[in-house]
């Protein structure tokens, strides 16, 4: 049997099995039948088996180069390295949906397995919800996007394979989509348990204990995915930056924001029995945003660097699914609203609870803002389309003044396209709002740990804030007068207000964390004499969640430190002949030679440059253009950067004229950029420390 047939059958079985599992779980829960519920749990494990089989078949097809399957034909090339053949599995739409199902069934299986004995009543409902989500994606595979689709007739198969876009043949690209998927998919687990809690009415902390680590896991992998995507853009696209508020990047950021909010607000519920309803809202919204993100990237509704292309049928299907999720989830929440009252009330504004509440509002505002701004261009496009095709809609728009009736009629009469008012929203708009919001969150990162639960006394406030405030002021002064990040001939670059604020807040927040560690260590050493290192390790191990959280905060501070450098970025576009020297801030970049080479995959032209600072040679830059034999009409830009703690010297080339050696290039100086990656590594370490929390501790910690 050809793989295409075998695989198509597997996908169909996957769909049928997931529907059967839903039915078993629902009926089992209604009749309180242990046997049926047990059957549904086994069904869920069975789904994982079938999904794994289908994935292995597709993987095999790629490795064997079975181009009788359309998906394999379009996404692989015999000359492609094996690693990229393996990852081509999820490189495009159909396969990525199968990958999604594989991960979802894996996580569902694991989550149900680990919670079976502890939260028995929740199980059938959680199984039903997880299997429903799997069934939705499996239905997409069966009815719309079968990755095993063969050519209609065997001889229709083209002989020339297409292959993976060379831009995507990059190690970051191997890890970036799967870690985003891991993060997004694992959010289905908290959602399923949250909904199960609502259905059964057992809305106390039990469901959260089942999902806290899943949310943390999701949060961690979303962050990894986002940063790897940024690194990829930074090293491959050659425009000198790593984040451009592209819709697809935003799609990954949105659930990360609400996840972060949830991880904080869950502590308020544990400690104070407050925010029960809010926590459920966050779980629903986070899950919704993962589906929304998939919708954005898979259906082509927004234009983006990495969108997979337009597909109205898929867009409608996702749209319907999203409506079901929203109506169903919020309906349940409304039905159970009486069970979700707070046990306590907010007592003071200067309390940990209030800091967390503010933090939650901020994260939600950020998420709403990013979602709105991402969708706005699409909304203007839809609106324009409606107005062009439907008179009633046009009339409404004229009457509320969104479209100008005179201009519209004039355009139509002279045969011109009507002014539909489509817009795009670029990074400048996002930065305008997100910079202050981000800085406010950074401030809260510092303030949160300094204030006590319930209320804080004045003496304690002074004691807690004194040192961090001094640190903030020192950081501000040092940044303003001490360290010239960028020196141009005429002296210092103009200082940026946001940049300075960011440095000051970094200093403040950094010191709050140091203070927490210092005080913790001091207490341990007072209780039992031991070395500082021992005390530090003991401290972190004893309260992993708390100190892991601080390590995450430390990472965030370093990332902000790196972002502050962005305000001092330098950019030059110029043409050069060999032997010429370009100045970039403190740096002198000499163009030595252009060299043409080739290997088995591509022709390469490399520009060799020497970088000097104050006369001393500090390194070489080797930006290049590559022409893959597979796609000769589209050369790729290979960026070169010189990494230093103070910042990157970054070069990419546009044109090289091999007869004269004249080359046109973009040079960037990105101050402090590497601290973003350093901070991010710390964030991962902190996240892992928290993930390792022992169960007992998770129940009592804070």
């Amino acid at each position: 049997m050809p793989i295409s047939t075998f695989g198509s059958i597997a996908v169909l079985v996957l769909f049928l099995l997931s529907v059967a599992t839903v039915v078993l779980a629902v009926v089992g829960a209604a009749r309180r039948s242990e046997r049926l519920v047990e059957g549904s749990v086994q069904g869920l494990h069975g789904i994982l088996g079938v999904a794994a089989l289908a994935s292995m078949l597709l993987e095999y097809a790629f490795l064997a180069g079975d181009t009788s399957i359309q998906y394999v034909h379009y996404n692989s090339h015999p000359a492609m390295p094996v690693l990229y053949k393996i990852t081509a599995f999820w490189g495009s739409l159909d396969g990525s949906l199968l990958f999604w199902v594989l991960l979802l069934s894996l996580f569902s299986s694991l989550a149900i397995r680990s919670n079976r004995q502890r939260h028995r009543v929740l199980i059938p409902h959680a199984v039903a919800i997880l299997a429903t989500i799997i069934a939705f994606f499996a239905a997409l595979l069966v009815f719309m996007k079968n990755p095993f689709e063969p050519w209609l007739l065997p001889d229709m198969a083209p002989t020339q394979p297409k292959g993976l876009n060379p831009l995507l043949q990059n190690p970051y690209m191997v890890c970036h989509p799967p870690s985003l998927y891991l993060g997004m998919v694992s959010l289905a687990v908290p959602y399923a348990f949250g909904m199960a809690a609502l259905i059964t009415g057992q809305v106390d902390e039990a469901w959260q204990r089942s999902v806290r680590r899943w949310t943390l896991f999701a949060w961690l992998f979303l962050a990894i995915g986002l940063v790897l995507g940024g690194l990829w853009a930074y090293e491959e696209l050659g425009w000198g930056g790593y984040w451009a508020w592209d819709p697809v990047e935003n799609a990954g950021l949105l659930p990360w924001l609400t996840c972060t909010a949830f991880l904080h607000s869950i502590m308020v519920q544990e400690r104070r029995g407050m925010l029960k309803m809010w926590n459920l809202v966050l779980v629903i919204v986070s899950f919704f945003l993962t589906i929304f993100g998939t919708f954005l990237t898979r259906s082509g509704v927004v234009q983006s660097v990495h969108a997979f292309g337009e597909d109205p049928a898929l867009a409608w299907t996702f749209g319907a699914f999203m409506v079901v999720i929203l109506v169903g989830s919020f309906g349940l929440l409304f039905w159970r609203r009486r069970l979700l009252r707070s046990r306590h009330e907010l007592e003071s504004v200067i309390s940990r609870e209030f800091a967390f509440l503010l933090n939650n509002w901020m994260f939600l505002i950020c998420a709403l803002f990013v979602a709105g701004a991402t969708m706005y261009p699409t909304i203007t496009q839809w609106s324009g389309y409606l107005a062009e095709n439907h008179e009633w809609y046009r009339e409404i728009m004229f009457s509320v003044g969104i479209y100008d009736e005179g201009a519209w009629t004039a355009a139509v009469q002279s045969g011109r396209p009507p002014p539909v008012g489509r817009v795009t929203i670029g990074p400048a708009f996002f930065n305008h709002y997100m910079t202050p919001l981000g800085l406010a969150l950074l401030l809260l990162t510092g303030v949160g740990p300094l204030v006590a639960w319930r209320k804080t006394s004045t003496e304690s406030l002074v004691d807690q804030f004194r040192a961090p405030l001094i640190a903030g002021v020192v950081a501000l002064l040092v940044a303003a007068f001490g360290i010239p990040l960028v020196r141009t001939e005429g002296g210092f670059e103009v200082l940026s207000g946001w940049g300075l604020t960011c440095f000051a807040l970094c200093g403040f927040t950094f010191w709050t964390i140091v203070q927490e560690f210092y005080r913790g260590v001091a207490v341990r050493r007072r209780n039992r004499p031991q070395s500082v290192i021992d005390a530090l390790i003991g401290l972190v191990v004893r309260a992993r969640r708390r100190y892991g959280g601080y390590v995450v905060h430390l990472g965030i501070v370093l990332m902000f430190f790196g972002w502050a450098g962005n305000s001092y970025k330098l950019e030059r576009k110029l043409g050069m002949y060999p032997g010429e020297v370009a100045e970039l801030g403190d740096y002198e970049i000499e163009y030595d030679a252009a060299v043409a080479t080739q290997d088995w995959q591509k022709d390469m032209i490399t520009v060799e440059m020497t970088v000097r600072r104050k006369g001393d040679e500090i390194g070489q830059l080797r930006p290049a253009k590559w022409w893959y034999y597979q796609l000769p009409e589209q050369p790729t830009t290979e960026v070169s950067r010189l990494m230093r703690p103070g910042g990157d010297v970054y070069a990419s080339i546009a044109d090289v004229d091999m007869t004269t050696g004249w080359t046109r290039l973009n040079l960037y100086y990105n101050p402090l950029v590497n601290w973003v990656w350093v901070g991010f590594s710390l964030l991962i370490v902190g996240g892992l420390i928290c993930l390792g929390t022992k169960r007992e501790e998770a129940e009592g910690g804070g």
Partner: protein
Amino acid sequence: MALPVGTKIGIGVVLAAALGYLVLSDTGEGVLEYMYVDQLLGDVQKYEDRTLKVHGLVAAGSIQRKKGTTGDLRFVVEYNGERLPVHFTNIPPDTFQEEGEVVLTGKLNAEGVFESDEMSAKCPSKYEEEAGGAAALSAGKAG
């Protein structure tokens, strides 16, 4: 909540003021009008000298690369039979090619040339060829 009403109002006012300040200080930079070539050329007076995004197809055989110290690129984008000459002064994205779809950011100058230094290029044949199938886009400066 057990907070005094005054405190609640205070918090509300502070948040509203901060948000209000942000909205008022928004210069509109970053929000650009977006249109196809035919719409731009349909009302040249209206759009002249405004920064906007224009969408079209790179006309076959129109790309000219000039090699001088201020290296730059000239080509024509077309849509619905309307043709717009473009002067582009940045590194084009790797997916830029003749007959490919591009979205350019820039201004129409008095000579009727679109001056641009930012481009997204879409390549219909790059990734998957199915009808209505996938198309990869690649960012020029900032997607």
